[in-house]
């Protein structure tokens, strides 16, 4: 287990390095510089600007500086908003995106598992059909369509929830609902199918024969094993949700990472694009790493290391 963790950790570092390098190469192959605007800048000023942002140095030096900035976690000042650093943008935007993302995944996982479990317990019953219809619809309707529908109906027509921004728990309801429905549908389907499989196994019959209460059988015995596939997809799902927040943030005018990222892209603001991409991807890769490690601990059947005596 320990050596697996180390190996997995090294792989995570390689992935982050690849992302960083890729971002660097891509950013420097974009035609046009951040100083290209309608007004022509004095050449001396231009040179000074490039000097200030260290864009005048040869590319390998820039690359090393860039890697250093990643390790020291200091992405430098933004080019378009010179009095702000990328770190400040991240500190402002990321907590909001993270809050939206984590709330979403919490809602999606809990409701997805509950829905899937009930569907499996009432196999081919009304709840099952309802849950699976809901799941197929949930997978098919893109979150931005759902978001618009929710705003139109619940915010504009019936005025139950505020339509935009991010300031109170009431403001969170619609964006979270829009973002959580898809993942919830996927989790519900997964839980249902693996639950159906687990429920036919002998140890469940054994638990029934022992006279355990149905609640205890389902929660303590069946669900534990049925949830393994759900844990497997958690990593990629989390990545999907956290990048999915970009569009939802735009629709609901939430001042999260997405806003700064898209602004950075439109302004060719190199430090902002590189900083946000590397930070965001590193975070996602780290989550994927955590999920893998947790999975190793959860599933006793996975023996990641064959050495005797290794836990």
């Amino acid at each position, binding site marked *: 287990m320990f050596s697996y963790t180390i190996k997995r950790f090294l792989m995570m570092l390689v992935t982050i390095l690849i992302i960083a390098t890729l971002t660097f190469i891509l950013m420097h192959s974009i035609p046009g510089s951040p100083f290209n605007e309608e007004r022509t800048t004095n050449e001396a000023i231009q040179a000074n600007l490039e000097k200030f942002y260290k864009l005048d140095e040869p590319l390998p030096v820039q690359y090393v500086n860039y890697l250093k900035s990643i390790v020291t976690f200091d992405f430098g000042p933004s080019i378009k908003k010179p009095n702000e650093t990328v770190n400040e943008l991240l500190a402002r935007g990321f907590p909001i995106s993270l809050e939206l993302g984590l709330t979403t995944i919490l809602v999606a996982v809990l409701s997805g598992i509950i829905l899937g479990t009930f569907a499996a317990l009432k196999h081919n019953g009304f709840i099952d059909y309802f849950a699976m219809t809901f799941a197929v619809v949930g997978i098919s309707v893109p979150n*931005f369509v759902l978001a618009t529908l929710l*705003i139109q109906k619940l915010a504009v027509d019936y005025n139950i929830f505020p339509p935009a921004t991010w300031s109170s728990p009431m403001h969170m309801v619609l964006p979270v609902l829009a973002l959580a429905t898809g993942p919830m549908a996927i989790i519900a389907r997964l839980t249902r199918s693996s639950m159906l499989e687990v429920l036919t196994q002998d140890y469940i019959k054994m638990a029934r024969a022992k006279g355990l209460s149905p609640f205890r059988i389902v929660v303590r015995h069946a669900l534990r094993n049925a949830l393994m596939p759900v844990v497997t997809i958690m990593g990629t799902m989390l990545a999907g949700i956290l990048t999915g927040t970009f569009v939802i943030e735009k629709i609901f005018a939430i001042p999260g990472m997405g806003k700064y990222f898209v602004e950075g892209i439109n302004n060719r603001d190199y430090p902002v694009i590189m900083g946000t991409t590397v930070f965001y991807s590193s975070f996602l890769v780290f989550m994927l790493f955590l999920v893998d490690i947790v999975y190793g601990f959860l599933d006793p059947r996975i023996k990641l290391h064959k050495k005797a005596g290794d836990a």
Partner: protein
Amino acid sequence: MTIHHEQTNVSPKTVPDEWFRKKEKDLVEAEAVVRPSLSYWKDAWRRLRKNKLAMTGLVFLGLLAIMAIFGPIFSPHAVDDMNLPNQNQSPSSEHWFGTDEMGRDVFTRTWYGARISLFVALAAALIDFFIGIIYGGFSGYKGGRTDTVMMRIIEVLYGLPHLLVVILLMVVMGPSLTTIIVALTVTGWVGMARIVRGQVLQIKNYEFVTASKSFGAKTPRIIRRNLLPNTMGPIIVQMTLTVPSAIFAEAFLSFLGLGIQAPFASWGVMASDALPVILSGHWWRLFFPAFFISFTMFAFNVLGDGLQDALDPKLRG
């Protein structure tokens, strides 16, 4: 086998030979197959046909393809016909799906959008298919160290956040049809390669492959005749599920302003353009593209599910 009591009393010695008659061997009749033999594909199709939901999806996709090809012909308006006095008209006999803020006909644009969205999705799925088969097939067939190295690369790529990479590529290459397809496939082939490799790894050790080898079949023949046909099921399922995610990704990019540029429009661009005006009650602007995005994704999803069941050899009845 029924035993007749009178006969059981007869001792073997007293059984007269006349009791036995040699039956004419009818070789033709013995070998005759009463029911038509079902190939793997016929059998899968038979099972798919029983799945009503999957067939609904298939029929919908067929109609959609027909409309994407011929739909614009039914309309007197061209895709980029602007008519400013006619802007944001609700659906009428003149404009079946209404018009947008430039007075363009939404009906015509929907079918042009269908062409682009479906083209992007199918192209992405096909390219994934080829790269995935070559990479995954090679890795799985070679095995050993090659496989380990190739799979390490895949694992690292799998960890990349796809949408971020796609966004970066779109920024660098500039939004166009080719860029979207390239961006989607750069990250998309990894899933396919994993599936192909897993299948090949499993199948290459089966007896029929060994038999083939012992008859002197060469590697290309084994890959073509033994390995590929038997991996087709999961591959096709994966392709059907790639399409909705490509359609979704394309729409997602359009929302960030990185979609197809005017005068063309994909469904994603149309839906994204409709967002600012939806609150002024121009519901048809969002409804039609959103409806077709959702229904196409629905159709591909249920078809993929149906195919998964139909193509699974374990479920062959």
